[in-house]
């Protein structure tokens, strides 16, 4: 379902208003008290008709919330070979960053064991951003480290990919690193970053679209 753009499923559903809305008002006036209940039931019925969709118009698999509301970009081999990350950008400019499914960490046998946000100069999970202006958010470069993803044999540094203010990191990963396995592209996101419009345009040039990324990694 679209956050901002016109809902494309709008045409799937009848938005017809019951033509008897006005007749209903007359009914209210004429009939005595005991049919108030009948009226209520009638109104419920009419409401219900509006709510039930036409199933033949619905797609078998609808686009996900992410697909519909975010534009997907990819940074292959970011700073290091195999370091594939995604950047999902919302229409309002906020970017959700995380590990793409082709990231090396997923190829490691034994899987991901831990996620540590204490990298660089501070513990990223400790910061608190407050207020509408998000003034006390830290400003990071695109190569600033966000966290360290550890597997049995190795560890990988995940970086911002986008220059901007760090609004939030996914703290759930600390206790539940397995989220990266189950859904790295949703519940397993790494962080949310707010770039300035100018900074975004600069980095966008170096990112790949989903199509381009699929071609590069020879995905189906």
């Amino acid at each position, binding site marked *: *379902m*679209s*956050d*901002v753009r*016109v*809902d494309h*499923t*709008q045409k799937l*559903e009848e*938005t*017809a*208003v019951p033509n008897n*809305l*006005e007749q209903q008002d007359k009914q209210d006036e004429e009939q005595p008290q005991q049919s108030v209940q009948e009226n209520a039931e009638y109104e419920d019925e009419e*409401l219900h008709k*509006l*709510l*039930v*969709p036409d*199933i033949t118009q*619905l797609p078998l*698999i*609808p*686009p*996900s*919330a992410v697909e519909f*509301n975010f534009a997907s970009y990819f940074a292959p081999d970011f700073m290091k070979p195999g370091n594939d990350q995604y950047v999902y950008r*919302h229409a*309002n*400019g*906020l970017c*959700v960053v995380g590990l793409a499914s082709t990231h090396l960490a997923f190829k490691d046998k034994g899987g991901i064991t831990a996620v540590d946000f204490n990298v660089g100069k501070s513990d990223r999970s400790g910061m608190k*951003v*407050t*207020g*509408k202006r*998000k003034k006390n958010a830290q400003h990071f470069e695109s190569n600033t480290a966000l966290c360290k993803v550890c597997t049995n044999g190795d560890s990988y540094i995940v970086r911002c990919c986008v220059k901007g203010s760090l*609004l*939030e990191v*996914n703290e*759930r990963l600390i206790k539940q690193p397995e*989220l990266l396995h189950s859904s790295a592209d*949703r*519940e397993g*996101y790494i962080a*949310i970053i*707010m770039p300035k419009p100018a900074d975004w345009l600069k980095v966008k040039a170096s990112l790949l679209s989903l199509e381009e990324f699929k071609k590069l990694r020879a995905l189906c």
Partner: protein
Amino acid sequence: MSNEVESAQVSDAMEVAQLSSLAAVDSHAGSCEAEMPSRLLNDAVRSLPYHVVKDLLSIGVCSRCVLRILGTEDHIYCHSSFSQSMLCSVLEEVTGFKSECDFQFCSVCLGVLQLSYRDDKETLVKMESPNDMALVIAELVKKEGHQIDGFSLEVSIPQFILENESSLLSGMKKRYESEPWLQERLLSKCVSVKDVLKFAITKPLETLLDTKASASSFRIRLAYTHKMAFGNSVERNQGFKRRKIGTENGLQNVNDESVVANKDCSDYPTNETIAVTGRSSLKVPIDKVSEPCHLVYLCYRTHIYLCGRYLKYSRNVSQTRWIIDEERMGEASVEEIIGSNILPMCRGDNYKFHAAGREDIDVRMLGSGRPFLLEIQNARQVPSEETVKEIESKINGLENKLVGVKNLQVVGSQGWTLMREGEAEKQKQYCALVWISRPLEDEDVCSISLLNDMQILQKTPIRVLHRRSPLERKKIIYWMKIERIAESSQYFLLHLCTQAGTYIKEFVHGDFGRTQPSIGSILGCRAEILQLDVTDVKMDSF
């Protein structure tokens, strides 16, 4: 002796003259004052201490202010038939004082009670009778096309006038302190300039507008301000405290030596003048007022309100006007549809739309509808019950059927409190079209229906995080019910009732796991929301 006879003759002649104008007064419908206003005036004037009247007139106090300050009852000199010149000549006649030839504005009221002012075109206006001012007002009301059933008259005058008056009164108290009339006339508070003007204008206005003055939403306001250009003051008392005023109000004096009366200014220097007159002379801070006040006539109605509930049938209509980069989002807005249909019926200047909460552009508002308040500014006409019903039918009958209205009615200012009532406790009911990544089981339907008063934790959704504080909000889902859709195993309707402020879309798809729990996490699969409708906004008072 002969003087007395003379003045008696003169006053008799004046009475005759005034009797004939009295006839005109009598035909003036609605003036039910004493039968002989001119006689009352003469009696009142004769009872005044003449030397005081002389003193006051000589320092430029106008006739109405003289009568007012000396405690004459206002209905005597406020009669609409008494013109400026008439009052002036009565006073002069009785006291034998001749005023200067060149017309001056009153040093106390700055011309307000002389019915003189500069209008908005900077033209100098000198009206003869309060009737004339009432006429100007009535014309304005008619021109604006106001339908009224009452009016409230307000007058605002520069603070300076009050200060003038206060300093004059202190001076008078000092100068005449031993005299017998002082006790009775001066020590009781004198009627204010504002009240006198209001009193003088109200009756003729009531007649012209054919309605009564009362506490009404229709306001008539006379706003007096005084700009610069005071005449050169000849004397300045050292006793006065010097104080410069800011330029905002235009109450500034060109001369740097100018002074403003304040409470300490009752110290009149007696040294220099006592030798001449034997007692302190009367002063006003400003003499020779060469410019009257600037007057603006305003008539307007205070806000009127219409309340009701609206329904939104379209997924392409925003609640309020939404324009980004000169482009409109959506094809229309609830605010504009309702406002544009009501405003012309009230013949108002402007409208403001307020609603109890809001829904996204792609979310329909069905069922009972959402309470709203429409504020109309300066309505020329308050719509009748019938008209309101017509408006409601009209909006509901619009061809494109984007918006509907229920229970439309005019409401007083209590409309605000009605809207705010129980805001925190407000419950909302929704119906969402949900898709899950696996077939729906009977157990799912059951387990969902068992969850009552479930608390969820929502981080600020990403879609609004750019303009909202990052917070974690606790919300309650009161109940949920799954309605299966025939011929579909993965689509269903989710009916739910939640606390006000809950983000429903995020509750369904989880928002990257930032809303816990979510439908997806409860059912152990991926969940998406395709459509959302608001089916009830629970509020009793609307």
